[in-house]
């Protein structure tokens, strides 16, 4: 029982990190109908920036999260500007290929010796792990930090998207670009803003990830990226609450598979889910008639 509880909490932690990545996939898809395959690599770069910030640049954990978010927001805007905007009205496949190209470029560029280098690095998180037992629930301070920060960011995002002018404009653009233009909305700016937002969230996810899984390398974004993408599809791509729901499910499935079946299966299960969702319910759990999309 204790073990199951522990696994569920581990799954929750993982699911919340996936949620931060999945939101970027879903928001970008919602607004330009593009799967930004480079998004997992933004997560990776966020993890590295955070690591540098708290290890070498003297930042606290919060400072590291913040600086990773800011730099990755800029990176996200650059990626959109260079790799996607010129192809915005080209056939969908062109942008998709461009996305794969950006992803590979970031991975191999970051592997260069004078960038991050190709090797694994073991991270010394700025927070020491402490185990607690809260009324029979085994939990660590890091798990609490991760879940708390993610929930805080989700609340901020919710407020931004549903309560502010720019958030309303994001939803308007996601529904109809030309109609949004006729309102005086600068659609290019809103799209860039969406990339900035999604990338910043992924960066925060990257830094938090290093607290729980203190090992980083230039290809570390691939698996979490694919799983978060699967989670976004599972919840209903383009739907913000769907990304969170899908991620929480993914987190549980993955941890429970690893704990009770076999840890070699954990990645395979993720893709099995993707295939089943695509076959049975391609619009996802909350898709069609569910909450509005962005």
């Amino acid at each position, binding site marked *: 029982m204790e073990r199951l509880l522990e696994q569920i909490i581990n799954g929750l932690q993982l699911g919340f990190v996936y949620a931060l990545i999945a939101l970027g996939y879903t928001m970008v898809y919602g607004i330009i109908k593009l799967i930004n395959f480079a998004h997992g690599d933004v997560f990776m770069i966020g993890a590295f920036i955070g690591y540098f910030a708290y290890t070498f640049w003297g930042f606290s954990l919060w400072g590291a999260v913040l600086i990773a978010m800011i730099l990755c927001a800029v990176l996200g805007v650059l990626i959109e500007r260079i790799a996607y905007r010129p192809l915005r009205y080209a056939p969908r496949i062109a942008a998709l290929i461009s996305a794969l190209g950006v992803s590979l470029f970031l991975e191999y560029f970051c592997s260069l010796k004078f960038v991050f280098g190709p090797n694994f690095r073991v991270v010394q998180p700025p927070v020491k792990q402490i185990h607690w037992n809260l009324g029979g629930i085994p939990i660590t301070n890091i798990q609490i930090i991760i879940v708390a920060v993610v929930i805080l960011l989700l609340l901020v995002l919710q407020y931004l998207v549903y309560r502010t*002018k720019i958030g*309303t*404009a994001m*939803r*308007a653009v*996601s*529904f*109809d670009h*030309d*109609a*949004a*233009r*006729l*309102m*005086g*909305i*600068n*659609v290019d700016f809103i799209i860039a803003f969406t990339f900035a937002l999604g990338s910043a969230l992924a960066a925060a996810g990257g830094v938090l990830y290093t607290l729980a899984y203190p090992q980083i390398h230039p290809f570390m974004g691939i698996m979490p990226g694919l799983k978060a993408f699967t989670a976004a599809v599972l919840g209903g791509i383009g739907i913000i609450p769907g990304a969170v729901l899908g991620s929480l499910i993914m987190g549980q499935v993955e941890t429970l598979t690893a704990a009770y079946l076999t840890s070699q299966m954990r990645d395979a299960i993720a893709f099995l889910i993707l295939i089943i969702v695509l076959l049975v319910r391609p619009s996802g759990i909350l898709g069609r008639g569910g909450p*509005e*999309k962005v």
Partner: protein
Amino acid sequence: MLEVKDLEVFYGSIQALHRISFKINEGEIVTLIGANGAGKSTTLRTISGLVRPRSGKVVFRGTDITQVPAHTIVRMGIAQVPEGRRIFSNLTVLENLLMGAYTRNNKQEVEENLERVFKSFPRLKERIKQLAGTLSGGEQQMLAMGRSLMSRPSLLLLDEPSMGLSPIMVEEIFEIIKNINHEGTTVLLVEQNAFMALQIAHRAYVLETGRIVLEGPAKEVRDNPRVRTAYLGELAFVS
């Protein structure tokens, strides 16, 4: 107020507009009538900056706006109610209206505009919290018009506002267009419903396969035999 000069627009290799020219004076209702596919929507989309012409010019109040981005053109005072309304069904009625005021940063002014729109369209006020997609066709047209008025345009472009509406609803919409014009907004009205459009317009242009084939005061255009047969549904006398 607005001058369109020798506009040529292509979609790929298809030419949609062949050097069309026309003018709109301050305070007028001008109508652009023509059959389906004549190029009416293309004309409006070009004025609004959604489509770029291959050649020709659009001049608004002395400024060449041919290359100005669409979102800036709204700021300059031209709003468009597009064909098919294109309301944001995923937003509430109020959010739709606030998007119409996107270019306006003064909160108090936006509040005043909202009140003005609710005065013209009282039905929208009862539904502000509702998702726009749940409105009836007539209400959606009202929302689309109210939304465009939220930017306080000096020139309003209307693309087939009567499309898909019941005759009573059409009467109501045209009444509102007249009122909007009385209150000082210049109107360019695109219609397939030529009969109604010619009743409220001051001047008219007739567009046929991308060319302006006839222009003049609305009364004269209405009495033109060719217009009567082609657009007003009267039988031609064949001798």
